[in-house]
């Protein structure tokens, strides 16, 4: 079977990212935005570029909210289908999605990190020819970009994702040191998040305080996960590390669902379509180079001889 090329992988990323946004917009009760007390809302950061009157008018008008929702759904559908010219559609739709995310998060007491991955992925895709393949117009033949450009789009999104993981893990070690892993931090977090209100209602996080051995396992898992979070950017340069990283990080996301009632399923999809193929794509645009002295060097060099090294 033919392996997908760089343009097809970037296009699959486009379908995934805007498909997820379509799902979110479709399932968000926009009428609720207009009903909640406005005092809960805070326009943060870039959203302050718009006057407050804009938000008060928007949330007070069911017609405007509905029009906004329909425009985003139509835009996301067009982007999933790969309608061209891509940037002409992607830029305004992504701007609307940024506003949507900002308004929804504006009703939260703090900036929730959920959907940050797909938000940045959407922004990155605007800068790349992501609709040159898997499009209703068919494959772009004339004027197609170099493979490195398509690979670049996948690489930048993968880099953003891996940087976010590295930020979380590094901050944790710098602030908490060894104590955060040897003390009660993780079993406390899991217990509190199991009992805190959640529609999901999983309470497996309590196992860490109910059974000491499980608590030890949670502490070890916390330390291992943090280490892999810190080293996440290395998924871009080492195939073996990426494989081990996937074995750690994907189950970690599933575990947080049952122990903390937190599930970043969007991240798992982003990992599948951007991180997994990133090394393969990098290999496709590289040239021969001499082997280095450290394991990561020779592994990378072997990739040029046929077996994927990155």
């Amino acid at each position, binding site marked *: 079977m033919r392996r997908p090329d760089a343009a097809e992988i970037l296009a699959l990323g486009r379908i995934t990212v805007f498909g997820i946004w379509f799902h979110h917009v479709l399932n968000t*009760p926009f009428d609720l*935005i207009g*009903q*909640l007390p406005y005092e*809960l809302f*805070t326009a*943060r*950061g*870039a959203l302050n570029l718009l006057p407050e009157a804009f938000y008060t008018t928007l949330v007070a008008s069911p017609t405007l909210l509905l029009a906004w929702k329909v425009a985003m759904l139509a835009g996301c559908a067009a982007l999933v289908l790969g309608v061209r010219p891509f940037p002409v559609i992607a830029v305004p739709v992504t701007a609307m999605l940024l506003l949507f995310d900002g*308004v*929804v998060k504006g*009703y*939260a*007491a703090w*900036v*929730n*990190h*959920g*959907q940050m991955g797909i938000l940045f992925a959407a922004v*990155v895709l605007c*800068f*790349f020819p992501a609709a040159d393949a898997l499009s209703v117009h068919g494959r772009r033949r004339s004027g197609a970009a170099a493979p*490195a450009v398509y690979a670049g789009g996948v*690489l930048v999104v993968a*880099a*953003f994702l891996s*940087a976010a993981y*590295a*930020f*979380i893990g*590094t*901050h*944790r*070690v*710098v*602030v908490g*040191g*060894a*104590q*955060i892993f040897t003390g*009660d*931090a*993780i*079993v*406390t977090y899991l*217990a*509190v998040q199991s*009992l*805190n*209100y*959640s529609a999901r209602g999983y309470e497996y996080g309590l196992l860490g305080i109910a059974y000491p051995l499980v608590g030890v396992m949670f502490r070890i898992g916390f330390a291992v996960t943090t280490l892999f979070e810190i080293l996440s*950017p*290395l998924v871009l*340069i080492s195939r073996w590390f990426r494989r081990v990283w996937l074995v750690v990080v994907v189950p970690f996301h599933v575990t947080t669902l049952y122990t903390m009632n937190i599930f970043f399923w969007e991240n798992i999809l982003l990992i599948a379509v951007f991180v997994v193929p990133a090394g393969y794509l*990098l290999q496709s*645009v590289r040239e021969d*180079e001499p082997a280095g002295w*450290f394991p*990561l*060097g020779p592994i990378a060099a072997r990739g040029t001889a046929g077996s994927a090294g990155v």
Partner: protein
Amino acid sequence: MRRPIHSWFRPAPFVVAIGVVLLLLVVLHPLPGRDRFVAEATVYLLLLLACASHEPIRRVARQIGVARLVVFTLVFGFATWVQLRKIYGPVYPFVSWTMYGSKNPPPAYVRYDVTLASGREIAFPLADLAPGSSTRALLTHFNRRLRHLEEVPEDPSVIDPSLHALQRLLIDVAQVYNARNPDDPIRAFHTSGCTIPIREYDGPDSIQCELLLTFAMPEEGVR
């Protein structure tokens, strides 16, 4: 034949250096604030160098075009700065990533229970009221207003003045719920502060909850 100088610029030494820095961070902890900043920045710099020294990445970077390269270098740089400075709201959509970074998180949570017209007692169903997926971030609005309470009230039905803002907000949000669920609306609130005995946990009954606030919803139109 001599190797070109760039052929020596490889990821491996930087990966080794990352390991050394992480080891030092764990061993030398706790670090003062300024040293934390330097230590964190060092890890990010080493990760960047490890990736940037990987020839396939450099090759892609050279070919994606100057404009894209400049834009994403600036974006990555700013994101890293936001992370190092621990900035949250003001630079949205950029934000610091600091989840689960406290070594002594409080083993406490707040329960917002409600009594429905049918007599059923349930947790305040915020999942039906949060416009996005961030139900707990909505919950935090209530918790912040609860922080003004200095001690557990002797009579939770006598509303402490510091909790008027919380009571008003709960009523406002509950009215949204009632408008959407006229068949079985919320009739009363019961807010409790709970502490989990992490070391002596012995089932749900060992969790200590104290009633902080209880009140009936005002009649329709009466506020």
